[in-house]
């Protein structure tokens, strides 16, 4: 005969109400874990989306995401010649304030009609809206392009084309203006955002170098005077390489490190750098919230179980009177704590999983996170019930006597 269950059934309404409250609290704590997962996934999505086995960057730098990195574009050829490297590609990265510059139709400023016509369309951004984009310049047919095309096509050899993340909210075929140059959105990439959460835009390497020059003319001119070239100097931020499955990326990286002025990071090292620089802060913030919420949950569970046990003082004394051993009494208290935790956790987790796609922030929760969190709740309930257990063990059988 399970006394814990029978007692709960006797006070079912109160128990469920308690579970509802605790469930909401645990749901919020679990949401924090999920938001952290989302931050990690977004932070790594760009590096992962580019599917680089190796990153070649400026010597002494942990670029191009965590630190600045500028290297000559011709490094790509040298990297490509290394044994084990299949293709290699030059990349630039810059965060740009862009403007949604109208629908399909070319470079003329959008007419009032067009503005009205396009306002409610697929794209959520109104014409003229300012967008923050992470612009990636890459060499078409080489590594570094968008990880996939959801809609439309990739950029061809033609200039001034752009593949954009759909989350930017600009419709396909529309124009995006950066530094007074307009680019046509020819395709949507599969979902990829920068480490800062900005939508990604891919343009050709040449367009991007042009853009770099226009956005920062003095620096580019100085470089030009030094180099003496007529065109913007061929500078990139990183060269990425794919490594053949038969070669060891770490060995290739070691080879590159022997060249002067260059650093090389394997994919794993790059993710580590990103995790440290971007994710650690989020981990600290969200970790703090989660810890506080779990502590609050623990205190609440402890108080609930303590109160539940105190309310049963007479029954516990009676059990002792009729000779129930301590094990029976400890089981009564602990099983109720476990049940409270289990029902609340299941309720909170179910609620969160049901609403997480409508969350303002990306929530990424795998079965491991949910199970780990469940285990934590279990331990919390176990520890929190000790207060109630201590009380129950101290009840004297004589307390059952008298009216």
């Amino acid at each position, binding site marked *: 005969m399970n*006394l814990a269950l029978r*007692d709960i059934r006797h006070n079912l309404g109160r128990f469920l109400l308690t579970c509802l409250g605790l469930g909401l609290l645990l749901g919020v704590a679990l949401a924090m874990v999920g938001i952290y997962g989302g931050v990690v996934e977004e932070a790594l999505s760009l590096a992962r989306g580019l599917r680089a086995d190796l990153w070649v960057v400026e010597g002494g730098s942990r670029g191009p995401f965590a630190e600045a990195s500028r290297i000559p574009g011709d490094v790509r050829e040298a990297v490509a010649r290394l044994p084990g490297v299949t293709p290699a590609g030059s990349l630039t990265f810059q965060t740009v304030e862009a403007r949604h510059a109208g629908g399909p139709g070319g470079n003329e400023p959008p007419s009032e009609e067009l503005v009205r016509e396009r306002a409610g369309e697929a794209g959520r951004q109104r014409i003229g809206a300012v967008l923050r984009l992470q612009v990636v310049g890459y060499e078409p047919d080489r590594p570094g392009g968008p990880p996939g095309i959801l809609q439309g096509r990739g950029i061809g050899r033609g200039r001034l084309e752009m593949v954009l993340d759909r989350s930017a909210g600009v419709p396909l075929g529309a124009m995006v203006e950066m530094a007074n140059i307009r680019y046509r959105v020819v395709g949507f990439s599969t979902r990829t955002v920068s480490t800062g959460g900005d939508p990604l835009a891919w343009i050709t390497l040449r367009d991007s170098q042009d853009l770099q020059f226009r956005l920062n003319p003095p620096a580019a001119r100085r470089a030009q005077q030094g180099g003496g070239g007529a065109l913007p100097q061929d500078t990139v931020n990183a060269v990425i390489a794919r490594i053949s499955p038969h070669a060891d990326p770490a060995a290739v990286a070691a080879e590159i490190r022997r060249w002067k002025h260059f650093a090389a990071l394997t994919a794993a090292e790059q993710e580590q750098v990103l995790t440290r620089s971007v994710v650690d802060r989020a981990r600290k913030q969200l970790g703090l919230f989660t810890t506080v919420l779990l502590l609050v949950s623990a205190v609440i569970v402890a108080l609930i179980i303590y109160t539940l046990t105190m309310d049963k003082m007479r*029954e516990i004394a*009676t059990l002792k*009177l009729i*000779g129930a051993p301590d094990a*029976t009494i400890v089981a009564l208290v602990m099983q109720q704590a476990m049940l409270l935790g289990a029902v609340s956790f299941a309720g909170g987790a179910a609620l969160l999983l049901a609403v997480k796609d409508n969350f303002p922030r990306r929530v990424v929760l795998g079965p491991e996170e949910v199970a780990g969190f469940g285990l934590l709740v279990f331990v919390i309930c176990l520890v929190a019930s000790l207060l109630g257990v201590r009380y129950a063990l101290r009840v004297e059988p004589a307390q059952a006597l008298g009216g």
Partner: protein
Amino acid sequence: MSPLVELQGIAKGFGEGEARVQALSDITLSVAAGEVVGLRGPSGSGKSTLLNLVACILEPDEGVLRLADETVWQGRWAKADLRALRRRAIGFIFQFHNLLPFLDATDNVALAMTLNDVPLAKARDRARALLDYLQIGKRAGAMPAKLSGGEAQRVAIARALANQPHIILADEPTAALDSERAQVVMDLLRRVAREQAAAVLVVTHDDKIFSRFDRLVSLRDGRIEGEMRPG
């Protein structure tokens, strides 16, 4: 045959200093197997205290307490697991019935048996039989809150008898019953005393049942005032 319950020079007080109440002094009393002994006296004379001492719920201050030929208290508890003693050897009917509010009548009785490792199904069968015998079989599925005082008292009696204990202690078991049912309860206690060779000690105010005791012990101000044999 040596008595199942044996008290020698037992004393018990409550509180300290000015507030000290000497509830019992120099109590020497024994109850043999098969014997039904009544305990009477004015309110506050120490009847419940005496019963609780025998049940090992309260600790004596002085004297010797022996149950079933074993010393239980002499200067200190002589047995480690008093609860095991209670659940195996003692059936206790409380002055206030003390049923568990979250179990129905049957399971309140069956619980006492499952604590002694009787399988639940068997415990429930026996619980129902006991409730039938006490004429509350119809209320076997009711929760304690839905029972009248007399019904609850009879469920508590069934629980006390469930493990066929050798020592049965009852604090005013018939207080909430009409005289006909009070007689049924007394008949049952007498039968249990005979059939199980149990020692039965009953606190009572109820003069209608005085004649059903083998002996009646009177308490006054914590001392045994006298003893009589109604038969």
